């Protein structure tokens, strides 16, 4: 449910990201077939990849934990009100997500590590972080 919400909300600001000269992509975990099905079902407007071994998740500092608490229930209520529903989990249910902004050729200008399910940064915050990163340019 949270992944569906996340791609929908970020898909809505894809044009703003691109207008800044940047691109957006998503990395999930699970099989390539699961990624393909996700893209097709939810018409994700940016490239989606998968990391079945979760090596990239681990190297990027993303957490793997139970990650469900009172905050999760609160944001689940919001997501449900907005029409997002939980489907069958495809991938590691304990893996948590996050956001990186990477400047070429490889500088992490911004990082957010989700502390639990539904602990996503809102798109406006990511856009602000992108704008700040671009205003300073590469190191």
């Amino acid at each position, binding site marked *: *449910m949270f*992944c569906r919400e*996340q*791609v929908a909300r970020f898909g809505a600001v894809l044009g703003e*990201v691109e207008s800044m*000269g*940047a691109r*957006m*992509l*998503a*990395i*999930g*975990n*699970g099989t*390539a*077939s*699961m*990624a*393909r099905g996700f*893209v097709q079902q939810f018409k994700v407007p940016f*490239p*989606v*990849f*998968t*990391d*079945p071994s979760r*090596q*990239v*998740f681990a*190297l*990027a*500092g*993303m957490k793997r934990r139970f990650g469900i608490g009172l905050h999760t229930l609160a944001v689940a209520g919001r997501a449900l009100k907005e029409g997002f529903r*939980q489907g069958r*989990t*495809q*991938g*590691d*249910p304990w893996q*948590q*997500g996050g*956001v*990186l902004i*990477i400047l*070429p*050729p*490889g*500088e*992490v200008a*911004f*990082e*957010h590590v*989700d502390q639990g399910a539904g602990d996503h940064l809102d798109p406006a*915050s*990511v856009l602000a*972080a992108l704008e*700040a*990163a671009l205003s*300073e340019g590469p*190191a």
Partner: protein
Amino acid sequence: MRPRVGECDTSRVFPDAEVRPMSWSPELAAATVLSPEGEAVPLAALVAEQPTVVLFLRHFG
């Protein structure tokens, strides 16, 4: 002020945020992800040309 090498300073956007360890590394650059078609792609190749927002999804559910 720019973050020092090895750090990612989120305080530029969130003044109260902690300074997190920077997570970019040669190992991360070389690590591969799979396209939906099953093609292995190094992460470095995905971010080499443009500033890139990378969303890490919990799963595909």
